[in-house]
């Protein structure tokens, strides 16, 4: 019985390996320009850099897509749509975030309307650094993502399912613009305690 199960597992493993091989060479991305990084997408898609060489195509609807590109800073208003799009995509699905503004806010670090750390709200599989990333960088990121998929490491969507409640809580807080002042008070208290 155990052996039989093992066989099944083996077969499943092989199948999923095959599926990963297929999905890595056919990454379809959602056609969604969320920020200024989107300006470098047309050159990547078109004749100069030609992303279709690697089987990457852009799709009109999230249902058909595998990769969500967050091209730059996200305002709270866009984040809501991004999450709707992400949840409509069918897993396995991957997220690539562009530019320094998705990593830590970048030059919008003190803006009242842009979220600073994207990974607090949706799982990110890959970041591309820079403001803004060059087309070569974008293509390199796709190749890197292919490598991660091949190794079975790009599993952000599983993470989203696992920590769904935590992600939802964070999203709720940011959508309502919830301000927390206790933190500062706590820090002040701790500082006072240290002084004592």
């Amino acid at each position, binding site marked *: 019985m155990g052996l039989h199960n093992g066989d099944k597992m083996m077969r499943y493993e092989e199948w999923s390996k095959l599926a990963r091989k297929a999905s890595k060479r056919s990454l379809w991305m*959602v*056609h*969604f*320009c*969320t*920020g*200024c990084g*989107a*300006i*470098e997408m*047309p*050159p990547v*898609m*078109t*004749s*100069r850099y030609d992303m279709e060489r690697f089987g990457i195509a*852009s799709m*009109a*609807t*999230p249902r058909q897509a595998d990769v969500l590109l967050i091209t730059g*800073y996200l*305002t709270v*208003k*866009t984040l809501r*749509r991004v999450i709707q*799009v992400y949840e409509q995509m069918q897993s396995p699905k991957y997220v690539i975030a562009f530019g320094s503004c998705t990593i830590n806010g970048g*030059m*919008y670090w*003190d*803006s*009242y*309307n*842009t979220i600073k750390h994207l990974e607090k709200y949706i799982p990110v599989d890959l970041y591309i650094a820079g*403001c*803004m990333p*060059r087309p070569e960088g974008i293509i390199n990121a796709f190749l890197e993502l292919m490598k991660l998929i091949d190794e079975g490491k790009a599993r952000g969507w599983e993470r989203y399912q696992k920590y769904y409640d935590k992600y939802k809580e964070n999203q709720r807080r940011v959508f309502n613009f919830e301000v927390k002042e206790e933190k500062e008070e706590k820090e002040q208290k701790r500082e006072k305690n240290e002084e004592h």
Partner: protein
Amino acid sequence: MKEYELFIGPQHPGITGNMMYHLWVDGDTVTKAECNVGYLHRGFEKLMESRLWMQNIPLVCRICVPEPDVNEAAYSMAVEQLMDWEIPDRAKYIRTIVLELARIAAYLMAIGSYAGSIGIYTLPQWSMGDRDYILDIFEQLTGARVYHIYIWPGGVRWDMPAELPRLIEKTLNYIEERLKLYDDVLFENRVFFDRAVGVGKIPCNKAIEWGVTGPNLRACGYGYDVRKLEPYAAYDEIDFDIVSYPDLGKFDAHEAGDVYTRMIIRRLEIEQSIAIIRQALKKMPEGEHILKHPNWLRWKVPEGYAFARVESSKGEFGYFVVSDGGLKPVRVHVRGPSYTHGINVAEKLLQGANIADVSQILFSLDICPPDIER
């Protein structure tokens, strides 16, 4: 058929960026359109109030993504007005060249994405590829592909390298050659003609009152161009004619203010920009490229109100800068051309349009959402 609601955007290929139109549709006809923006609102105007005068340069160029240089130019010009600076002649010419190159790049992008919206996917592939050669020039000149941070208050950041004019000339010749192919595929295509003539007409007597500017206004028959009205950079020393509606060169003029005329105007202005760059390269004097500038960290700008305007590929870009004589601006307000095109004008044009035409009307207005919401 029952009326239904349709949301175009923000995730939709037929929208000109990250914005949304809420359409009420009856059968195939849009009965009401409402624009919903704010997806790109970063609060630039607030950020600028808390940064030094010089620190704002990297911010302003991010206001219009497809054509960032006009923002740097307009902001610098507003600050120069407050400082009463007259920039060196060489800097003026370099600015002209940079702005015109940026205009060609933006027009190539606009034409490409318009062609995509009516389903001809060959032209976007070509025009985006060709636009990249202009970005190559920018890369040599400024070090960056998209955000150049090159035009500064008082001049330009670096002098133009001696070998660059040759590269520019080569690229311009190449683009001129390619324009013939574009004509074959799009502008002289019978189906484009069938689709675009008479669609999305801006009523010409209302155009100025609605705040239409730039190529869209010139398509209505008004030959107004900021480059002629209020010459900045070196435009007063350069000889060029404004392209406006009835006189469309080798193309036939049909109806004023429709999608067809707007796209043809853009197509013709590429050639005009090429001619301007050639003239500017020929006339460019030697000399300094920037004024002797103060310590940027302790730079105080005199008190006052200044307004600078620049003709961008989308229309009139204006910067209203208020200073109280301090280290930081009190207020910087940006007038993006898409502010009127994208909200008031588009809402009126979409009313009564066919849903098949919604996308092409938006792309032909060349709406750029980041300059609506900043």
